[in-house]
């Protein structure tokens, strides 16, 4: 299953609101444990009256969606599908806090309403008055992948001609504090672009929103195409991942030899990165490799940032030095493989191609 990508947009810790600027000027964050999004002036995309009541993740999601649709000249998508690992946690925390501090009395319902995981997809539909198919996936490192597969399937079934698919997750002070206690992040502050140089346990926390307008047919807006997507749940060994990935690349791109770049989800935690290193030393051979979690941080839907990055690279034909893993020469870039996993349990892969 494949689709043409007519529009992309992202709000991330990078200057992604302008795709061409982003690849030229990567942001470095010094002495940090987490990366937060550079938020745009929302009034360019959202009605201030409507956005006043929106939480941060809803604003970021709705804004990125509107920008993506504008880029693709898509007014009424045939489906709106989002993926989010943790959903609207700021409002979940807000409602829980008021529940306990007010001892269950006189609670403001707004944070409860907006704590629902499908709030962003619903807000987009509401803004567009879009009655089409609407769905939200909430499965850890498969959240965005499930949304993407659903979108591809709707196009394949001819249920829809053009669909909007997005991945979104927000980092809050509480969610950082709790995941920090769980040992997810490095104890010492780090310089983001040097993430892979630290040998300590843990990664760099992150967040972001990315949206894609997918088209069944190629159009004058088309910037790239997504060829195929697959996921592996709890592979037993790196060798099993290698086997599955090899079969996938053969089917999706015609073999490893056809790949011009591989984008990997290395997150700086030696245990988590073991499988990537195994693949770099075996299956990937001499294909140039890059990584991305040092520029967006680690979160459940970071793979949506990777798809944004891959599409931007195909469009601009430029790979910033700071994301490269090796010094192999890169010519014209036609096919990019993105391979990512979240906590070694949810592995995903997709091929993005120029067209």
């Amino acid at each position, binding site marked *: 299953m494949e689709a043409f990508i007519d529009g992309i947009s992202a709000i991330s810790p990078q200057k992604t609101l302008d795709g061409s600027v982003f690849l030229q000027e990567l942001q470095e964050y010094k002495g940090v444990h987490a990366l937060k999004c550079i938020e745009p002036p929302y009034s360019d995309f959202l009605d201030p009256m409507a956005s006043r009541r929106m939480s941060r993740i809803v604003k970021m999601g709705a804004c990125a969606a509107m920008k993506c649709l504008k880029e693709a000249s898509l007014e009424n998508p045939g489906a709106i599908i989002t993926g989010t690992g943790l959903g609207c946690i700021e409002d979940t925390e807000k409602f829980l806090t008021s529940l306990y501090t007010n001892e269950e009395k006189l609670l403001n319902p707004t944070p409860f309403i907006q704590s629902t995981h499908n709030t962003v997809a*619903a807000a987009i539909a509401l803004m567009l008055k879009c*009655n089409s198919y*609407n769905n939200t996936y909430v499965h850890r490192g498969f959240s965005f992948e499930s949304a993407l597969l659903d979108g591809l399937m709707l196009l394949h079934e001819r249920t829809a001609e053009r669909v909007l698919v997005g991945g979104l997750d927000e980092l809050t002070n509480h969610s950082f504090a709790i995941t920090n206690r769980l040992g997810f992040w490095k104890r010492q502050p780090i310089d983001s672009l040097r993430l892979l140089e630290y040998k300590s346990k843990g990664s760099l926390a992150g967040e972001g929103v990315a949206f894609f307008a997918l088209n069944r047919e190629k159009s004058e807006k088309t910037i790239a195409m997504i060829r195929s997507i697959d996921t592996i749940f709890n592979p037993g060994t790196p060798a099993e991942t290698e086997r599955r990935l090899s079969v996938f690349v053969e089917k999706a791109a015609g073999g490893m030899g056809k790949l011009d770049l591989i984008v990997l989800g290395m997150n700086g935690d030696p245990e988590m990165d073991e499988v990537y290193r195994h693949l770099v030393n075996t299956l990937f051979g001499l294909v140039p490799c890059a990584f991305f979690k040092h520029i967006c941080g680690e979160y459940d839907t970071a793979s949506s940032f990777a798809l944004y990055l891959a599409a931007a690279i195909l469009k601009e034909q430029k790979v910033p030095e700071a994301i490269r893993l090796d010094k192999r020469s890169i010519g014209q870039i036609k096919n990019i493989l993105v391979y990512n996993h979240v906590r070694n349990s949810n592995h995903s892969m997709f091929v993005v191609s120029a067209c």
Partner: protein
Amino acid sequence: MSDRVFVTGIGVISALGFDIDETASALQKSKSGIGRISLFDTVYKEEIPVAEVKASNIELAERAQVKQDGLFSRTSLLGLIAARQALSQAQVRDFAGTRTGLISATTTGGMDRSERFFKEYLKNNRRGRLRDIVTHDCGNSTEIIAKQTGIRDYVTTISTACSSSANAILLGARLVKNGMLDRVLAGGVDALTLFTLNGFNSLMILDRNGCKPFDEERNGLTLGEGAGFLMIESERLVKKQGKTILGEVKGYGNACDAHHQTASSPEGNGAYLSMEKALITAGLKPAMIDYINAHGTGTKNNDLSEGIAIKRLFQDSVPAFSSTKAYTGHTLGAAGAIEAVFCIMALQHQWLYPNLNFRQTMKELGFSPVASFQHHVPVRYIMSNSFGFGGNNTSIIFSGC
């Protein structure tokens, strides 16, 4: 590609009982599961009724065949119990050579444990037991079901508020029809929590006397908990293995009301569209539907909006319909799947379910739901509606075989 997809196993746990037999018995006796809150402390204990699964987590763990060592949320335990029943009825024992997926749905995931964590954490952010927070996310219960049952070819979780598990069934049917999988265990689960109780209470839509769907005097919903799962298999696999078919997923429709974050549109647009899409994919005319298992939460807004949508779509041939939420309470993310199980049971036994607590016809509608349990009614096509916050509306049509 598989043109037709069949249901070969069902599993359910709710306030009506721990399995299909207990559920069937309660349904036939018109016995509601609504009662008083016993699961957790709340200031609303004496005031707001709920429909609890009548068992502690320790008892549930035993039924789920896991050691309750404090690692499971109530959500996971409920889900696992219903999932095992569906697998067992479908006689799915090994997964070699068959691509099997698991699609679960939930609205609050492991909130029953996270709220315990958060209470302590709020006092001091070094406090709260971490084992109570690692089960928080919606994917947790799904992965536990996947690991315990051995399903691993495709695993995902859906959350679209109260239509969540209807969307899980819809996705499951599509994955099999598109040849991505041979079979899917699809359903959903939600446990009662202080979070949801207070959430719906803050919206002032909890009926203090238990819900009365489609009644003129209805005054809100009643929360419930539980899980439902359906084993959905391709036609090829069913034929090859000579399986007993319980029903067919005939059609489905998903549409967005796009009217308001919580309220349904007065003309029931989203509901109309999801039902219409389901009829189109099923290739059926409205008059061919024998029974609608309505969303029917008991709120002023939902029942009016849904009723008007039914009237608009079915016109002079409004079929028998009822909401079973006065039996089970509104089980949120599990509702679509639990009610899908009820639909399959109705097709198997040719039953119609009563809309408990109904007394007075809604003025705006002029038609009434099924009043008492009915046996031996010819039922071939059933439509099941599930509508959620955000205007997420899904309708599924099941047919008998």
